[in-house]
């Protein structure tokens, strides 16, 4: 979901402290991760129950099935839907701890297997889009840092426009342009690289718009800083100044944004995967919610939450390594 985060300083928990106090930071972090995962599973478990419609029906091939009473009763027994909600929840948590995500109602397959199959597609899409967004944002920043007044004005507008484009409008326009009129790229995903270009661009452009705006400020600060003046005074050319000094400083806020970017990519993936018919978690999530497939929804949400926590932990770590001042300042 393209949350609206422009200049967002990297937020780290209050437990800073010197290098050798990594342990408490690590313990607290894992505690936090476990808590969040538990909370996410619980909220989804009960939220899905609020959705109108009988879960047993979801087991028997989705809504509108004219399944007989016996079939519904048997399904309820098989999936334990006849037991009181609390027992179902505790049972579910118990199995969760052993890593068993249960069976998907609609796909009649273990949730872990379904996720395993689709995880690759979404992860590939997310990582490529993140990389493409970084390249675009850095490219724009380099151009605006060295291109003078005009360049920086134009590039900042491009960033704002990029960040304002809804995913699906961008996707439709890209298909119209590159596939229908120019015919260079396939409009839907075919295995192999050609099928990836448009989906990645669709996710990368809005993200690049946000990254660009966030990086722009720290790049401009860096370019006007005394250590850049010192570098120039050493005889460093403009290119060297940008890539050796400013670009690295731009990475800091970008790292801080990674947690949010991950969420935006997953939300974007739902739309992009359905337009380009790419298999992936996003599309299965949308289908699972519509088919009221409880175990699959919770399974996917848990995987996404785990991914998110992993990313924020890594960014927290990267923050501390990249910028020792943070570690020392105990932020």
């Amino acid at each position, binding site marked *: 979901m393209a949350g609206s985060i422009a200049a967002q300083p990297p937020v780290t928990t209050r437990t800073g402290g010197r290098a050798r106090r990594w342990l408490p930071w690590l313990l607290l972090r894992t505690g936090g991760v476990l808590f969040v995962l538990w909370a996410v599973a619980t909220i989804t478990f009960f939220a899905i129950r609020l959705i109108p419609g009988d879960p047993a029906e979801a087991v028997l091939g989705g809504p509108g099935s004219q399944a007989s009473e016996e079939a519904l009763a048997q399904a309820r027994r098989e999936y334990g839907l006849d037991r009181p909600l609390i027992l179902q929840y505790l049972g579910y948590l118990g199995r969760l701890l052993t890593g068993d995500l249960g069976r998907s109602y609609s796909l009649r397959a273990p949730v872990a297997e379904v996720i395993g199959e689709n995880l690759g597609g979404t992860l590939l899409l997310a990582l490529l889009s993140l990389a493409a967004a970084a390249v675009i944002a850095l490219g724009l920043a380099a151009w605006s840092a060295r291109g003078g007044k005009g360049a920086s004005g134009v590039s900042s507008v491009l960033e704002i426009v990029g960040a304002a484009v809804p995913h699906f409008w961008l996707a439709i326009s890209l298909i119209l342009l590159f596939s229908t009129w120019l015919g260079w790229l396939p409009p839907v995903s075919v295995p192999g690289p050609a099928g990836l270009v448009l989906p990645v661009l669709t996710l990368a452009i809005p993200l690049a718009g946000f990254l660009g705006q966030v990086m722009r400020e720290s790049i401009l600060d860096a370019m006007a800083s005394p*250590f850049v003046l010192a570098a120039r005074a050493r*005889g460093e050319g403009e290119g060297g100044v940008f890539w050796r000094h400013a670009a690295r400083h731009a990475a800091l806020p970008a790292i801080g944004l990674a947690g949010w970017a991950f969420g935006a990519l997953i939300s974007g993936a739902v739309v992009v995967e359905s337009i380009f018919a790419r298999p992936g978690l996003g599309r299965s999530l949308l289908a699972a919610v519509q088919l009221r497939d409880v175990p699959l929804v919770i399974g996917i949400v848990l995987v996404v939450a785990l991914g998110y926590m992993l990313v924020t932990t890594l960014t927290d770590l990267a923050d501390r390594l990249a910028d020792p*001042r943070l570690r020392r300042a105990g932020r």
Partner: protein
Amino acid sequence: MSAMLEVRDLRVSFGGTTVVSGVSFDLEAGECIGLVGESGSGKSVTARSLLGLAGEGAAVSASALRFDEHDLLSASPRLLRRLRGREIGYVSQAALLALDPLRPVGREIADTLRLHGPLGPRQRQDRAVELLAEVGVPEPELRAGQRADELSGGLRQRAVIASAIAARPRLLIADEPTTALDSTVQAGILRLLERLRAEGMGLILISHDLAVVSRLASRILVMRAGEVVESGPTDEVLGSPRHPYTRRLVAAVATDRPRWAPLTEARPMAGALAPSPSEALPPAAVPSEVVLEASGLVRRFGDRLAVDDVGFSVRRGSTLGVVGESGSGKTTVARLALAIDRPDAGTVRLLGEPWSEATERERRPRRARIGAIYQDALSSFDPRWTVGQTLADALSSGRTRRAGEEVAELLERVGLGPEFMARRPRGLSGGQQQRIAIARAIAPRPDVLICDEPVSSLDVSVQAQVLDLLDELQRAYGLSYLFIGHDLGVVRHMSDELLVMRGGRVVESGATERVFGDPRHPYTRELIAAAPRLNGG
């Protein structure tokens, strides 16, 4: 033979506004010339224009701007890039920020070698370590791998110099190389620059501190608003200054100026409150009441002991000076005195009653008895308020009609007109901001004022006005000051009694003149020796 560097009526303007005009000087190899002037005098732009780095949109012109056989005016960007670092070294103004915080210090030095030397990466790294050793950095091997924030101010400055001289340039421009450094460290850096000059490097030394320049430069140019108002051999310019501005500059230097001696001719305090000249004598040394005292103060941050068993007492109407280098615990003492921070041990008493032990609720009504002013006055103002609102809030007279009158009176007392009420602090000069901070501090008629490095970042002439203002207010209201500073000259001029602090402990204390007269502790002696004197001492 012609000079190494020849500058004839240099002019620099930014989009119509002239910043530097008519600057001319020559420089020989092994000679040091000093550029002196206050902030905004154009001395830094002059130096940077030699490197073609005057700044975005700068129009540089001169009848001659020659370095050896190169005409710097018509030099191509490629030629300029080759000159920078290889022929002309530059130590930038805010030296403490001249190192990229995210890169190892060794790498920044090696960069100069990469740009101008044939050495491969491995040799460059070794050479960088050698250079660090050459500029006097202990454990160069370790330091080269560390980042800027892991080094002290002095070490960082030495690393910057190492980077500037890595390719053996024949001219070194040092722009404010010692600002914000403690005097002992400052002395070390000046000795290093002196050695480089002696080895044949041409040196342009730029500073607002006359004492610093007078130690190294054989000739001095005094600049004001972009023009050279006076130039000539150092002794002549400082000994018998011809231009009134130079005279004022020399007079403003507080070092060696006795207590209560006004540093500025103009009377900053007009109006009824100005004491007649006869009262200018120091108040009788009657044993007056102790307004603020502390005993056995201890404060620990993690495993670092910031304040260790510090005790002091401030008498009414007098000033206790606290001097020491950065990291000596002076600011922590100030925060403990203000009860912004709680001591781990020891007590502070205000006007005879417990102060640090009291709860914040108990302290609040007595907060009016003790005020504070800081080095960075601007950051202590609420950015959304005008000067008038800030002072009205301090007077806590709120919206009443009399507020306007009281604020105007307060402004007048610190030498500012009523027209300042509508202004925003952000738009004022450093001196004016500090005056407003003082006005706010004295509004509730306090007995004690904690002054934490109030004038450290001000130009000499502005510094003088603020110090005189503090003297007058002390005399007019019998205020007592806890005056903290790292500039020995300023602290000596302002304080009746003195505390010398090092590593969180009080190494020496007593009457100011006694401590300066015969310093007992070796560290005090070292401090006094290191303080730069005007007459080249």
